[in-house]
C-alpha cells in the first residue's frame, strides 16, 4: 500500500544527525545506532563526546590489540581518550547531565510521542529482565535530547505515536526525531516537519505516521 521512498541508510541517517551538531558541542551518543554519528561529524567542527561511565573527550575505537578494558564506553566497548580528555566518577558524570551542562544527547527509541515523551528502556514484556542504565538521566538532563530510529517497526507501525504504550523513560523530553524517512521536531503542539526524503510529501508522511504534522518552519 505505502509507496516505497528512498530511505536513509544507517550511515546517511547518522550523517543527517551529525549535520545538526554544532561546533563546540558536548554530546552524549547513546548505545547502538547513535554511536555511528561520531563517524560523520562534519570537518572543522570540534565536538566533545561524553560517556556516562566517566569520560569527556572520548576518541575512536583503539587499533586491534591495543584495547584497554579500563577505558570503555557506556556500551562497554573499548575506546580511546583524545588530548584534553578527562575522567571523573559517576556522580559527577550524571551531574553533567542533570545540571544542564551537556548540550545534546542522541538516543535510540521504541516509541516517541508527538509531544516528545520517550519510551526507550523497556518493552514491558513479562519475564524480561529489567535494565534501565542511564537513559532516564540522559533523556531529562541534556539541554537537547534527540532520537535516532527507524520511523516504522518491522510490522510497519509508526514509532512516533500520539501516546507511548511502552514504559516511559521521560516526559516531553525529546526535541527532535531523526528517522530513515524524515526529521521531526516535537513541540507542545505536536509534530512539526523538519525535512523528509525525496518524494515524500508532508501529507503522505501524515498518512504514514497517522498524526497531524505542521509544515517546516520557513
Amino acid at each position: 500500500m505505502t509507496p516505497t521512498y528512498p530511505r536513509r541508510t544507517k550511515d546517511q541517517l547518522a550523517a543527517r544527525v551529525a549535520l545538526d551538531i554544532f561546533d563546540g558541542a558536548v554530546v552524549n551518543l547513546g548505545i547502538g545506532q547513535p554511536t555511528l554519528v561520531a563517524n560523520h561529524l562534519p570537518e572543522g567542527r570540534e565536538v566533545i563526546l561524553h560517556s556516562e561511565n566517566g569520560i569527556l573527550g572520548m576518541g575512536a575505537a583503539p587499533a586491534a590489540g591495543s584495547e584497554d578494558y579500563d577505558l570503555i564506553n557506556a556500551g562497554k566497548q573499548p575506546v580511546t581518550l583524545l588530548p584534553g580528555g578527562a575522567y571523573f566518577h559517576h556522580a559527577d558524570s550524571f551531574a553533567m547531565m542533570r545540571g544542564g551542562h551537556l548540550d545534546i544527547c542522541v538516543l535510540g527509541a521504541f516509541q516517541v510521542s508527538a509531544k516528545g515523551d520517550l519510551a526507550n528502556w523497556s518493552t514491558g514484556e513479562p519475564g524480561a529482565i529489567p535494565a534501565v542504565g542511564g537513559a532516564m538521566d540522559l533523556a531529562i538532563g541534556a539541554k537537547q535530547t534527540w532520537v535516532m530510529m527507524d520511523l516504522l517497526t518491522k510490522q510497519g507501525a509508526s514509532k512516533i505515536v500520539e501516546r507511548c504504550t511502552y514504559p516511559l523513560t521521560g516526559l516531553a523530553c525529546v526535541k527532535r526525531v531523526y528517522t530513515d524517512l524524515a526529521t521531526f521536531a516535537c513541540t507542545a503542539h505536536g509534530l512539526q516537519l523538519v525535512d523528509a526524503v525525496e518524494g515524500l510529501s508532508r501529507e503522505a508522511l501524515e498518512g504514514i505516521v497517522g498524526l497531524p504534522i505542521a509544515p517546516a518552519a520557513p
Partner: protein
Amino acid sequence: MINKIAQSVADALAGIQDGATVLIGGFGTAGIPNELIDGLIAQGAKDLTVVNNNAGNADVGLAALLQADSQVFDGLYRAGKLELELVPQGNLAERIRAAGAGIGAFFCPTGFGTELAGDRETREIDGKQYVLEYPIHGDVALIKAEAGDRWGNLVFRKAARNFGPVMAMAARRTIATVHDIVELGALDPESIVTPGIFVSKIVRIDRVATLAGGFKKAA
C-alpha cells in the same frame, strides 16, 4: 601509627556479617573488584543486599557471587530467588553520594512520570517536576583502585574510577584493592581522588586487568 594496609583479601574482608548491605564498584569490564568478590564468596556472608551497576559479566564478578546453584542473575531473577530494585544509573550514583555526604533525601528530576518513580513523593520546584530520592548507605563498600598508601589515599585508572569514589564515601567500612602500594607522600596530593578518610583497608592485588590488551574480556 595509621596503617590501613591489609596483608590479604581475607584479612581485609574479615567480619562482614550476614545481611550486610554491600556496595560493589565497577561498570562493564572496568573497576570491578573481582578479587574482593571472590573473597566475599569464600568468607561466606549470606542474605546480602548488593548495590551495583551490573549483574556481572558471564560468570565472573557479581555473577559469581549469585551463583548459589550455578545459576546467574537472569535465572535467579526469573525463579524469584532474587529481589531487585531497579534504579536509574544517575540516581544510583547520586543516592550513594548523598549517603556519603550526610544528605537525608533529595529531589531529583530523573524518572518523573515513569514507573520507576513508583509512588515516591513528588514536588514542583520553579516549574519543574522532581521525585524524592533517599540515600543508599552501605555497611561495606568493595572497590578497585589503582594505587594507594597506608593512610588509604587512592588514585584510580581511566574509566575504572566509575562508582569507586562515591561508594567509598557511603559505607561504614570501605575496602579497596590497589595494584601499587606507595609510601606516604608519593601520591601527588593534587591528584588524590579519594582521600584516605573514606577508606578502611587497602589490599594489593596483581595487575592482570588493566594493561592494554592484557585483560581478556569475559566471553
